[in-house]
């Protein structure tokens, strides 16, 4: 058991270090420690299941050890910025004011082809029109276009627009969501009246009913199944 714990800790930190040195490209929307945890747990859980000669506890102890490591590292990096940079790295600016930062590209082992592919996938073809391109710690490339290329906002045009309102689901596939009904400050009497207005006798005849902050209702009756 002690060996299992020692081995797990060594492999975990070795993988963490290796992935940290490999760079952000390898991650793809996962934090470094999450990626390492995911890669390890899947394999650890499978071994005792496949090989009956390995006690199940040899699979469970490493998983529990990894869980503890992950929670402790996440907690410690919330408290210390230095530790956070050490474990997860920091964002890298790949494009700054329309210029490729070659040093950062080299540091992150990000090729021009990969950069162009990322830019194209986000709808940009001209690097000079990009103000910032930031490679985040989870491996995602965020692009902020030059102000002249940014979409015009209502505020820039001096327009007054109404605030958006979030629709709350009241009936989902025939079931009344009472918690949501309470949340929007409505009751069943109000709901029964709205059902009748829309030609339904009971909630079970309704597929979807939502109401937004302005009180606007979306109503979809259940279709008769053939």
């Amino acid at each position: 058991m002690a060996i299992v714990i020692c081995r797990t800790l060594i492999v975990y930190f070795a993988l963490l270090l290796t992935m940290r040195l490999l760079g952000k490209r390898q991650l793809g929307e996962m934090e470094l420690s999450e990626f390492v945890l995911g890669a390890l747990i899947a394999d650890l859980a499978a071994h005792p299941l496949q090989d009956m000669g390995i006690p199940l506890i040899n699979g469970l102890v490493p998983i529990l050890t990894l869980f503890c490591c992950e929670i402790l590292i996440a907690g410690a990096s919330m408290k210390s910025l230095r530790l956070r940079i050490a474990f997860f790295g920091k964002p890298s600016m790949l494009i700054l004011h329309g210029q490729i930062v070659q040093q950062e590209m080299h540091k992150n082992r990000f090729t021009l082809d990969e950069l162009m592919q990322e830019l194209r996938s986000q709808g940009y073809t001209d690097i000079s029109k990009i103000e910032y391109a930031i490679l985040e710690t989870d491996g995602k490339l965020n692009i902020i276009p030059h102000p002249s290329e940014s979409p015009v906002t209502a505020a820039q045009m001096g327009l007054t627009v109404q605030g958006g309102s979030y629709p709350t689901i009241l009936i989902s596939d025939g079931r009344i969501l009472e918690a949501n009904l309470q949340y929007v400050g409505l009751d069943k009497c109000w709901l029964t009246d709205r059902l009748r207005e829309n030609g339904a006798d009971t909630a079970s005849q309704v597929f979807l009913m939502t109401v937004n902050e302005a009180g606007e209702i979306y109503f979809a009756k259940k279709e008769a199944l053939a």
Partner: protein
Amino acid sequence: MKRELIALILLALLIIGAAINLACVDQLTHLVCLNLNRSEKAAAYGDFETARKSYEIGFSVWQSARHYTSVFLRHPDVDAAADAFYDLQQLLLQEDSNALPAAYARLRYHLDVIDYMEHPSIGTIF
């Protein structure tokens, strides 16, 4: 903070559990080896009756820890030790004094391996 505390406690419990496991495996192998030594000495003097009795005590100690061994120890190691126990039992019944020393040594080796493999060291970790 609560989650970190729970993780820390859990990690500490795992380490304590590992230490208890070490003590258990030490005690088990020590007790079995003690009886095997007595059995071997008796067999060397030709007292096979005492040798069999001491062997039986050692074997019953090993058998009584069956649940522990199957949960915490690698099954191939446990099976190898069990095979060595039965081989020794057969030789004791046959009173074959020529083959007995090797059988005792083989069983003691398997028990040593089990004990060694549970102790953290450079050799066992890597």
